[in-house]
């Protein structure tokens, strides 16, 4: 840390009391004539076209009075202050630059750079390993899925074929049955014969059932 020296005590000239105004003097007080009218409207509520307030009609703003002795003393103090400030600024700038230099080309920099590079390489390796692993897993998975799909397709085809065969068989059976029944059909040639047969052999479908379940086929016939 720098050791900052305080300002030395100021000696007043004997028998002189500096004129003090209530307000503090702004940065660079002017030794201008008192009657100089300064800026009229710098900031504030009113716009350009608003009239002046009644209480301020004849007002002439005047800067606070400046004491020349105090001014001299102040100038001295300011020059010293600025000198010290300039020196401080240069010192701090140098320190910042030195720190930056140390950071970049210092004793630790190489080691740190090397370590970082090693870390980086290790991480990249690990990443590559992970990628390979994921790739293998993915390939296996994809293969399995393909096989599954193939199998399913085959099964579906077999199923379809089987169903086709089933339907063919059913149809063939129906045809055979129909052929069988066709032998007993009544055709135009058989018509007369069948009528005569029917008339000759009357069939009786009536029967009676007892409460005990005995079936009686003998009925009253013509």
């Amino acid at each position, binding site marked *: *840390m720098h050791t*900052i*020296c*305080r*300002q030395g005590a*100021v000696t007043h000239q004997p028998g002189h*009391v*500096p004129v*003090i105004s209530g307000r*503090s003097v702004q*940065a660079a007080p002017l030794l201008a004539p008192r009657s100089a009218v300064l800026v009229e409207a710098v900031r504030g509520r009113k716009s350009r076209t608003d009239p002046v307030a009644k209480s301020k009609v004849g007002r002439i703003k005047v800067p606070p009075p400046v004491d020349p002795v*105090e001014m001299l*003393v*102040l100038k001295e*103090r*300011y020059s*010293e*202050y600025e000198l*010290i*400030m300039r020196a*401080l*600024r240069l010192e*701090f*700038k*140098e*320190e*910042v*630059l030195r720190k930056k230099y140390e950071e970049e080309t210092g004793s630790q920099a190489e080691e740190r750079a090397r370590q970082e590079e090693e870390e980086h390489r290790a991480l990249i390796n690990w990443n590559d390993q992970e990628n390979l692993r994921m790739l293998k897993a993915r390939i296996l998975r994809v293969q399995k899925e393909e096989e599954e799909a193939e199998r399913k397709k085959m099964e579906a085809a077999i199923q379809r074929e089987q169903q086709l065969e089933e339907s063919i068989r059913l149809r063939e059976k129906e045809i055979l049955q129909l052929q069988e029944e066709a032998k007993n059909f009544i055709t135009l040639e058989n018509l007369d014969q069948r009528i005569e047969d029917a008339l000759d052999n009357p069939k009786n479908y009536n029967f009676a059932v007892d409460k005990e379940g005995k079936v009686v086929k003998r009925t009253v016939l013509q």
Partner: protein
Amino acid sequence: MVHLSSFLLKKYHSGYVVIRLAMAGHKQANRPFYRIVAAYNKRSRDGKYIEQLGTFDPLPNIYNEKLVSFNFDRIKYWIGCGAHPTKPVAKLLGLSGFFPLHPMTVTEAERRRAQAKLAETTAGTEDSQEEENRAGV
């Protein structure tokens, strides 16, 4: 047409850095509190700053102290990078001992002392005048 420069040139700034007091608005009336802050010159007082370097509480506490805090390391860095402190910040730093005492601090103190002495002497003369009047009467 999108204003592209605001996306690309986020870091662009011509202007300089200042170390100044920014009101840390806790949105309570009549209770100010300042942060000592490194910010760009043209930014608003309470707007986005680069870094906070300390605090300043202008109202005295129960032990009649006004509390100030500084981060001297970072202040050194910013001054080394070319930041300018404002007058009140320079005064506070001078009082802390980090900077030389600001000339206005000394001048103000002298003025106040002279004022006090003047008030004392006038009070003294008034008292003595009253005594004389009473003695005379």
